[in-house]
């Protein structure tokens, strides 16, 4: 297994190259590029500029682990407005294009957002339709679409069985799950999600989570090994399903000070997880 971290973790105000240097020095093997979340990678970034990003990544001794985006929180694939859905599809297509340009074979998509306005059943159908529409494009590009389990935040596909059923209905080897072990919160157990989804896992996002909410303030997320995830069980499940891909740190709880130190600490934590010295 290899470890990666998002370029959206690079401290604000830093240039991309400086951030890459830190990522490499901290011990990571790769970088996750966040389309629309960082100034150097937006929907307006040209192919030539994306190729240049890849060059910088490789010059730093890293590779691009995957392309992700948070743009679907505001432009969901499940919107009732067909114009918004068309934009959402375009975002995924751009992710696929830039994944090819940067030499990686997976993207992350937040498929679907249930709200009071847009109910679950509508969201479900639209997401199945969208994934079926995008699957051939992904297959042709040899890129896998990983739908992320944002669970409580999306209020969609909250249980592993729902997610399994959803992927069955999409029915494409090019669409799987980008499994986040922290997003499950107190609705389940990450190791069970891993066991159930096995070969459909495209990438794994790492974070820890305080399952007993109410003890902490605003955020439920925290650094690895501090929260309530059962890390030995998670590691055992990863081994059981023979997952040997990327482990990507998505540290939503950021250090308030010495932000560069978080990179070193997180990389070291992931090394312990990979080695099984927990």
């Amino acid at each position, binding site marked *: 297994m290899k470890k990666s971290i998002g370029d959206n973790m690079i401290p604000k105000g830093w240039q991309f190259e400086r951030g890459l240097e830190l990522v490499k020095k901290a011990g990571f093997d790769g970088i996750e590029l966040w389309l629309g*979340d960082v100034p150097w990678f937006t929907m307006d970034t040209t192919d030539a500029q994306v190729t240049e990003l890849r060059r910088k990544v490789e010059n730093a001794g890293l590779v691009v682990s995957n392309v992700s985006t*948070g743009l679907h*929180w*505001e432009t969901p694939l499940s919107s*009732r*407005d*067909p*114009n918004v859905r068309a934009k959402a599809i375009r975002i995924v297509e751009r992710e696929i294009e830039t994944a090819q340009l940067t030499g990686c074979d997976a993207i992350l998509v*937040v498929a679907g*957002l249930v*709200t*009071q*306005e*847009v*109910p679950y*059943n*509508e969201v*479900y*159908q*639209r997401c199945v*339709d969208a994934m079926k529409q995008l699957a051939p494009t992904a297959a042709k590009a040899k890129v896998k679409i990983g739908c992320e389990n*944002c669970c*409580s*935040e999306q*209020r969609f596909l909250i249980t592993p069985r729902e997610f399994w059923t959803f992927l069955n209905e999409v029915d494409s080897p090019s669409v799987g799950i980008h499994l986040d072990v922290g997003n499950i919160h107190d609705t389940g157990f990450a190791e069970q999600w891993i066991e159930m989804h096995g070969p459909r896992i495209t990438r794994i996002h790492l974070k820890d989570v305080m399952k007993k909410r109410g003890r902490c303030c*605003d*955020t439920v*997320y925290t650094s690895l090994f501090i929260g309530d995830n059962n890390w030995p069980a998670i590691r055992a499940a990863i081994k059981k399903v023979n997952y040997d891909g990327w482990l990507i740190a998505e540290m*939503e709880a950021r250090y308030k000070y010495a932000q560069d130190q978080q990179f070193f600490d997180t990389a070291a934590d992931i090394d312990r997880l990979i080695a099984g010295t927990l």
Partner: protein
Amino acid sequence: MKLSRREFVSTASYVAAASLCALPSFGITTSDSNARSSAGCTLLDLESNCALPESLAGMRAALGNAHLRVTHIALRSAESVVVVPAAGKVRAETFGAVADSIEHGSTVLWESGAAFLEPRDFAYQQDLARDHFAMSMETPIDVWSHSTSRAANVGGKNLGARNMRSIGHAQVPYVVYRWPREAHVRDFSRVIPVSAVNGRAIARWGEIPVAWRKRIGAGTLIFVGSPIGPALRAGDADAASLFCSLIRV
């Protein structure tokens, strides 16, 4: 067992309606509108001018095999029932053909998908509806614009999560049908207030009429300003029952 005439007619009507709405879907597709529908209902597929393809899909599924799908309506044709899903940027010729069909005795269920059009395109559809159907369509109302849920959709993942915990419990603004049966159907985010000089409102969002029924010549127009098709696609049983009732009358 003795049946009264009333019981027999009622049962027969129910069976006919059930046959329109409950069977697995394998509708017949043709571009020849002169082919009479032997199955009871004609579905006008506006193709690229259908604003919500999911509405078309929902209605096709609800109709099962009891419909004929066409892409245009011939002048002076009189179909029994015509359903027009999610009318978007509809051409004047299509409006004319449908109006003519109603004049000659058809019942047309016209579902407007115009609420998602650009203002200029919507204005043109307003003109066409007025000119061909004598129907007034007002500017679409964004039903959820004051809902606290909107605030939760803005921003990044973590911010959204924090906001979502503070969502209030805004009343779901159902569209309430009073004819042909009482039904509550979810709005589709934007509703088009509709009215006409003759006929009557059959559904309201609050106090605002959003569906109308009127006679045109020998036929009837049922104009729906808040789409039902997406609810059909999503499996809403109440919407399905309402839809069957609308095309049965």
